[in-house]
């Protein structure tokens, strides 16, 4: 469950202000909007990585945030995948045992002992996803997890996210891919200029948006 009220975050020349968020457990929300709309900022606020200037956020359950920069540590692929579990006190060997099936699933089983820095961008994205999922969080806050992946791997990531959702987890996914937002989301939020312009059932938001700005954005007419 995620709840936020009167949320404000200010930077020089930008302000994110969201009046209210009420997200029951087990929802899959996709967040769309042009670059600079405040999507990543909102996600970082929900993750508690940044303090709001005003308002508050309440997240029930353990949340994990997956950043779009896909930081990898100067360790092997296996050690990187196991890192999240080790942070939670799981022994190195047990953590390695638990992440191996995940790594196999995302096609990295043959690279367990390679330095993670040697991976391609797409491989790093899959590794970062495994690292987050292996900790079995209640809430997943994902910033562009399928960015710059080839179509087969986009489909793989989407399958994994659907599966995680089917196990009752709450997901908030920021994406620039409108098709993906529509395919995956039960609910979609449209952000523009730091404001939550429209939020509603994904199918309705894409087929029958209530606001002109939303319609222009999803129709590809908005120049920004």
């Amino acid at each position, binding site marked *: 469950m995620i709840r936020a009220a009167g949320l404000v975050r200010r930077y020089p020349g930008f302000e994110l202000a969201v009046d209210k968020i009420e997200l029951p457990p087990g929802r899959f929300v996709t967040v769309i909007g042009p670059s600079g709309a405040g999507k990543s900022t909102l996600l970082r606020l929900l993750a508690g990585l940044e303090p709001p200037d005003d308002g508050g956020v309440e997240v029930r359950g353990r949340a*994990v945030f997956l950043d779009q920069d896909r*930081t990898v540590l100067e360790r092997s692929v296996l050690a990187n995948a196991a890192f*999240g579990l080790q*942070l939670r006190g799981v022994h190195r060997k047990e953590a390695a045992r638990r992440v191996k099936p995940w790594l196999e699933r995302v096609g990295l089983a043959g690279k367990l002992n390679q330095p993670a820095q040697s991976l391609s961008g797409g491989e790093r994205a899959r590794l970062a996803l495994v690292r987050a999922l292996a900790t079995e969080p209640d809430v997943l806050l994902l910033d562009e997890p399928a960015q710059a992946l080839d179509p087969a791997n986009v489909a793989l990531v989407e399958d994994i996210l659907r599966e995680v959702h089917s196990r009752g987890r709450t997901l908030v996914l920021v994406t620039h891919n409108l098709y993906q937002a529509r395919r995956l989301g039960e609910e979609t939020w449209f952000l523009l200029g730091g404001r939550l312009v429209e939020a509603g059932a994904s199918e309705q938001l894409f087929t029958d948006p209530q606001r002109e700005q939303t319609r222009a954005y999803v129709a590809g007419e908005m120049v920004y």
Partner: protein
Amino acid sequence: MTAGWPEIWEITGRSLRVAGAATLLAALAGLPLGVWLGARPRPGGLAAQVILYAGMGLPPVVVGLVLYLLFSRSGPLGWLGLLFTPTAMVLAEAVLALPMIAGFTLAAVQARAAGVRRLVRGLGGTERQVLATLLWESRRPIVAALAAGFGAAVSEVGAATIVGGDIRHHTRVLTTAVVLETRKGDLERALALGAVLLGVTLLVTAFLVVWGERR
């Protein structure tokens, strides 16, 4: 060149002990300081960074002079009786090595801090785990910092002469011995001492680099 001159090994041993202890002392203070300053913006952090970077160019003779005044019999710390002892040399060399170790560590940690913090905190880690991860992820540049600190300590001569006094069998180290032998005109011995100094620096650096490459 070193055959028939066993004292050279005594001098080498003392150089290693003094520079090693100074590097250890500087690392104990400099590593946490560098990590703490580099991990996130701190009040006064920029001023501290300027002081540390400027400190990398501290003139050893000035450090030696200040410590001499502190430790001389009429100085505020004269009662400690440290002047012309290896301990005074350790302290002087630690003062010279500290800005290098802390400054290079700060720069290395600063470059990784934002990404590592988002990663660790995003996975539910604590601030302490952020610092531990930063320290481990910066281990290669930190090895360079330790090597630079040891290099500054072992090759230093001005402060060692002023606070150590180059006393035979007591405070004579490789650098002060090179100066002495050169002044005496025994260039063969001066060259031998210089070669040993270079060898020691190379060996210690090699040890640090291999240690830093461990997974």
